[in-house]
Structures are given as structure tokens and as C-alpha cells.
């Protein structure tokens, strides 16, 4: 082992050096740039950081431990890291991360980015990630003292901490409306409306466990919401797919009949598409499940309908305790255009968070709560009526007590009558 601790200069990093080759941009080269910026306050820290990292590569073990660090007024948003090998690498003995919420949809001007760089050179290590897996800008590497200063400076330019711990977490939304024709609702507005309404839950962690929102403009789900959010908002539409049959014919003429059958007709999950003998498409919209596939393939000929809105799925998470869960379809359709629509969404978000706060066990995600108490109890608690879209199919088990079936059925019929009434008006 190299004698790093006694060497006052730069640590040897032979293993890390190996990662400077290859064509992909190298994070090691970047770290070294920071280390080598001898004027900067952070240079010694980054030298020791590289030293500790090399040590990890040698030992194949991590050497950070957690702790408690926060900024004034907030209980979360900082990931504190203290080195377990600070004796060898003293300058990086504190190496905390600030999780900062980016503009919804990740839009930046170069100007803004430069401001952020400046702040982080001043108060931190100069190492920033765009973005963490939950969507935060991660300002990585500062002392306990630097944490507050960096936050203050970022807060001054309009940025706020994201979530950590048992709290509302930073959300993500896809580029959507800003640049994507598939987008079925205003993701920026939905994202900001919901998160900004519940900031208190983010900044002062007091939920049973983490709670994440994610927003995708359509079922392509470019932010992985269904797997990775407790509350996923996915754009969809209720009316028919829009078809431009001339463009369909052009597409078939270009790629061929067989290829069209194999990549569009055969790939529709519900056999909703049929190719007519004149090379136009027949789409059975009642069978279509809004999966996006055919629209993705024929971007010019096909597009989502006009009666757009969102579906809400609840309960996605990774594997701790019960195993991975994806969100379950709870609200098949919610219109999301008018101010009232957005208010309704916010109200529903609040109901769900309150349910979670009141009913989840400690360290239990909402998906696990639903799993524990059952879907019927959950939807009743959050005031949602049963809908066939919530399930792949109705129950297959006869182990249920149905003596109140008729009363339950009456609710459905009353609801359907009321809906018919409304749509007739």
C-alpha cells in the first residue's frame, strides 16, 4: 500500500487513473481538475477525496458514515457524510451533499448553470451532479459550515432544498409540453402545484417514510414514474387516437406492408389495430389501452386524442421488505386543464399524503400499506370508487364475504346514472 497519509502532496490513484482512459467522459479526470485547481479552497478536500476513493477501490469497501446536518429552518435535504478514514484523509472528513430541486423539466440557461458553479466553488467542492436518480441537483462535498452558506446562496438565486429522510421527496417531470407532441397535460404546472403545496412535508420530515411524486406526460413514462414514485401522474386521453390516413399510407409505402404488420399491427397489446387492404389503418379505440406504441412508431400519422387528462397510480417503490412494487392504477382518468382541475389534483394529493401519514407503519411505503390493508380498504379511505381499470381483472378467488353485494352494486348503478345524467346535460 502506498504511504498516502505521510505524503503531503497528491495521493497516488493508480486504480482511478485507469478510469481516465476510454472514450466516455471521465469523472476521475473531473475530480483531478478540482484537486489540481490549487487556488481553490476545495483543492485539498478533493485530493483527500480522491485518496479515500482510491482506498475504497483497493479495499472494495466504502468509508463514509452518516450523521446529522441541516440548514436553519429545515429538517431535511442534506445528506451528511463523515469519513471513517479521516485520519488518513483529513481534508475530506466532512463531505455533505445538498439536494436541490431543479426547475421542473430540467431546463437551464447557461447563465444559471454558471451561477451554480460559482456558488459551489465558493462554498463546496466544485462537484455537481445533474441529476440524482430522484431528480435533485446534487451539490456534493462540503463541510457542515459550508452547507448553510451554500444553501443561503442557492436560495438567494431562487433555489430550494429537496427531500431526504422520511419526507416528501423531490419530484421529477418529463420534458413533455415543452418539446414533446405526446404530452397530454401541463407537467410543469402539475409538478409545481403539487410539490409546492406540500413543501412543509419536504422540509420538516415527519412522514412514516419517503413519499415521491413523478410526472410523465404520457404512457411512455420517460421519468419512470410507475416503478419509482409513490404517486405517479401519467398523461392519457379518453377519446379516439387521431389518424391521418394519408400519412398512414405513406408510412406503409415507405416501410412496406409486412414490416407494418409486424411492427404495428402485431405489436398492439390488445389487437386493436387492423390493416385494411387499402393500406389504411382501422383502430378499435374501445380496445386501445393508450399504450402509445403505434403513435410512437407513426409519429406523423397518429397522435393522442383531444380529450386529454391524467391517470394516477399509487404505490411504486423498490424492494425493501415486501419486494418491488409498481404503482397501482387508482384514478384512471382525471381532467387536468382548468384551475379547478388542478385544485382537485392538489386535494387528492393531500388526501393521499394524509392517509399515508395516518396509516402507514414506520418505514412503510404507501405501496406496502395498500398491500397490507388491501385495495378496497385503501380506496375507501381516500374516497375513490372502485373501477375496473384498477385491476388486470376482477378477483379469481371466491374467498370473500359478499352478503352486502347488492348494496355495493347499487352504489355503482347510482354512480353510472349520475354520470349519464352529467354527460347528457
Amino acid at each position, binding site marked *: 500500500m502506498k504511504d498516502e497519509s505521510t505524503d503531503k502532496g497528491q495521493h497516488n490513484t493508480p486504480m482511478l487513473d485507469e478510469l481516465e482512459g476510454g472514450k466516455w467522459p471521465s469523472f476521475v479526470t473531473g475530480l483531478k481538475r478540482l484537486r489540481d485547481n490549487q487556488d481553490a479552497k476545495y483543492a485539498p478536500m478533493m485530493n483527500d477525496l480522491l485518496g479515500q476513493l482510491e482506498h475504497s477501490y483497493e479495499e472494495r469497501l466504502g468509508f463514509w458514515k452518516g450523521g446529522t446536518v441541516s440548514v436553519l429552518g429545515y429538517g431535511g435535504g442534506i445528506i451528511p457524510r463523515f469519513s471513517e478514514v479521516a485520519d488518513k484523509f483529513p481534508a475530506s472528513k466532512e463531505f455533505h451533499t445538498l439536494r436541490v430541486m431543479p426547475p421542473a423539466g430540467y431546463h437551464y440557461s447557461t447563465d444559471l448553470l454558471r451561477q451554480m458553479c460559482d456558488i459551489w466553488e465558493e462554498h463546496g467542492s466544485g462537484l455537481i451532479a445533474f441529476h440524482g436518480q430522484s431528480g435533485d441537483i446534487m451539490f456534493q462535498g462540503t463541510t457542515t459550515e459550508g452547507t448553510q452558506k451554500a444553501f443561503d446562496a442557492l436560495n438567494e438565486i431562487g433555489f430550494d432544498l429537496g427531500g431526504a429522510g422520511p419526507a416528501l421527496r423531490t419530484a421529477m417531470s418529463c420534458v413533455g409540453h415543452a418539446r414533446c407532441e405526446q404530452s397530454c397535460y401541463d407537467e410543469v404546472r402539475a409538478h409545481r402545484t403539487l410539490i409546492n403545496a406540500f413543501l412543509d412535508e419536504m422540509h420538516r420530515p415527519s412522514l412514516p417514510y419517503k413519499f415521491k411524486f413523478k410526472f410523465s406526460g404520457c404512457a411512455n413514462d420517460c421519468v419512470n414514474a410507475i416503478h419509482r414514485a409513490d404517486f405517479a401522474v401519467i398523461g392519457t386521453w379518453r377519446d379516439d387516437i387521431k389518424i391521418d390516413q394519408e400519412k398512414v399510407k405513406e408510412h406503409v409505402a415507405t416501410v412496406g406492408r409486412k414490416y407494418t404488420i409486424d411492427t404495428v399491427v402485431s405489436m398492439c397489446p390488445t389487437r386493436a389495430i387492423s390493416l385494411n387492404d387499402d393500406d389504411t389503418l382501422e383502430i378499435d379505440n374501445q380496445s386501445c389501452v393508450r399504450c402509445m406504441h403505434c403513435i410512437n412508431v407513426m409519429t406523423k400519422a397518429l397522435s393522442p386524442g383531444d380529450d386529454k387528462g391524467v391517470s394516477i*397510480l399509487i404505490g411504486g417503490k423498490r424492494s425493501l421488505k415486501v419486494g418491488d412494487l409498481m404503482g397501482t392504477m387508482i384514478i384512471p382518468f382525471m381532467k387536468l386543464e382548468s384551475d379547478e382541475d388542478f385544485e382537485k389534483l392538489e386535494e387528492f394529493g393531500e388526501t393521499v399524503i394524509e392517509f399515508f401519514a395516518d396509516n402507514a407503519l414506520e418505514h412503510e411505503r404507501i405501496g406496502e400499506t395498500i398491500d397490507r390493508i388491501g385495495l378496497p380498504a385503501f380506496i375507501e379511505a381516500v374516497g375513490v370508487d372502485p373501477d375496473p381499470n384498477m385491476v388486470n381483472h376482477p378477483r379469481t378467488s371466491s374467498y370473500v364475504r359478499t352478503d352486502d353485494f347488492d348494496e355495493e352494486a347499487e352504489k355503482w348503478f347510482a354512480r353510472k346514472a349520475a354520470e349519464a345524467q352529467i354527460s347528457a346535460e
Partner: protein
Amino acid sequence: MNQQAEKPRMPDEVGVPDPFPYMHPVMKANYGNWDWHDRPRPGVLHHVSKSGDEIWTVRAGTQRQMDVFTIRKLCDIGDQFAEGHVRFTTRSNIEYMVSKEEMVQPLIDELQANGFPVGGTGASVSMISHTQGWLHCDIPGTDASGVVKSLMDVLYDEFVQEKMPNRVRITTSCCQINCGGQGDIAVNVQYTKPPRINHDLVANVCERPAVVARCPVAAIRPAMVNGKPSLEVDEKKCVACGACYPPCPPMQINGKEETRIAIWVGGKHSNARSKPTFHKLAVANLPNNPPHWPEVAAIVRKIVSTYKKDAKHWERMGEWIERIGWSRFFEKTGMAFTKHHLDTWTGARKTMNMSAHVHF
């Protein structure tokens, strides 16, 4: 037992009999050598062998629970018009095999003249699979023969023609154990109340630990009632499945009003296209209403006619519903979707829609 001298006859454990002595000669000759088939008309199959041999099969409905007179009548017809060989199908239909096409029509005529409907092939509603019910079983909630007769009367036309999108296989079961199994449509008893326990009898009749072990939700516990060992049911937990009743008849699960009928849809055994599936709850709590079970018949009819009108060729009931979506299925058949349709049993999570796939 008494002073009987004769030595008792010991069984000859012959096992499963060899069918070849009873098989139609053309089938025997072409065993394992068939080439293709078609269906010249409803109720008739036409199989062609690689040898060039052909055989026509005429299928007819029976009441399964047959008196010897009915059986002998069927034999008479077989002797006269069908070369003396028959088989019964998985669904208790009888099949006559004939080696010449011109024998088909007279055979059909004779069957029909004697009240045996010819059909049940291809895209038809075949005979409903049958269980024992009040006629014979010791735990039934309803009568299978009666339900089946009532339903087949209603579905008669769909048996004798092939106008469905694909075959429709209906099953009935006279208790929740469901000897009838899965079906495109399944008409099953559904208990609605926990068992009523006759505490005086439990101690003598029931092996209590075995009964406790049978309960799928651990709702039964041993208890002393009126100073006698008996059993107690936690009514909050009990899912009224009736599993405790067969091993312990004093735990009466049936009741004149409490025993109800549920209808399930979309079970499938074949592996054609989609994998086999279990049937799913359509409607529960229908009255157990002999002798015609009109409420049940009305719903079965509605489901069958909706499927007939709406499904694509070759789609089975469940495949059709998966395509159009369960919302539309409930809408089109005029049934209600309730919280009871949301599964709560082991593995329920896997029945939830964990995707943005949605039907409107």
C-alpha cells in the same frame, strides 16, 4: 357375515380398461394417423386420415344423469344408424362415429326426433359441465342437474348452431368447492354467511384440530361451549368459504336464503393463444331460485349474447373481455363493479393494474 359358506369373490384389479375392443374400427385402423378435419355443419366433425380414410362424428346432447331407458334409446340409434360405436365427450355429450357421409343426415334426423339436440361442436355453447348437487352430494348448496337443465333450455339454440366467436364452455358447481372447475362462464354457489354451529354435535362428529386446520383464514378456534368442547368462528375473519363444513357437518354453511349464486367469467383451459386462466367474478349474491333459477339464467344469457355480438372470431370469453376491458364488459352486460371485485386473496397484488394501460 353369518353362516354363509361361499367364499367371497375377490376383485380382479383390472384398472383402466383397454378401449380398443370398443373403438370404432376406422378409428382403430387410423389410430395416430389423422391428417386434418373440418366441420361440415354444426354438430358434425369430419376427420380425414393420412391413409385417406374418413370418419364423420355426430355429437348430441344428453342429460348426463341418465336412466337406463335413455341409454338404451341412444344405443338403439347407434345400432340402427351408426355402426354400434359411441363415445362420450369431456362434457357428457354423446358422439356417434360413422364411416360414410350419407349416414350423417339420417342419424341426425333420428337423434333429433328422439329429442337429442345435435350440436356442441366448434363455436357453440356446449353442454354445461355437471356436478352432483341435491341429487347426491352431502354438502350441496344447490342442484347441479336443475341449474344445467334450466340453462341448457335457455341456451339450446346456441348449442345446435355455431354462431359464437369461439367455443363457450360453461360450468356449474353446487358448492364453493367447485367440482365443476373453471369456465368461460361458471355458475357457482357462493356462501354469504359464516357457518352456524350446532355446538351439541361438534364434540361427537368432528375432529376439531382437522377442522381448525382446514380454514384458509384461521378463523376457527377450539372453544368450550355449554361445557362441551366445540369450535368458535371469528366472524370478522371468516370469508364464508364453507371449507369447514365437509369435515364438520355441524358447521352448517347452507341456508335457504344465505346460500347464493355467483357468476364468474373468463376461465380458460386451452393454451391456444393465451395461457390458461382462472375465471373472474362477474356478479355475486344472485338468489338460489329453483326450479328455473331465472335470475341466473338471465345473466348467463346476457353475457352469452353480448359476447356473441361483440367478440372477434377465435376470441374466447376472457380474451374478448381483456381486449375490450372490464369496464366495457360491465357496461355492456349491465352488471355492477364493486369493491368485492377487487381481489383480496393471497397474491392480490398481482391482479392489480400496475401500468398505465387503461380502457375508456
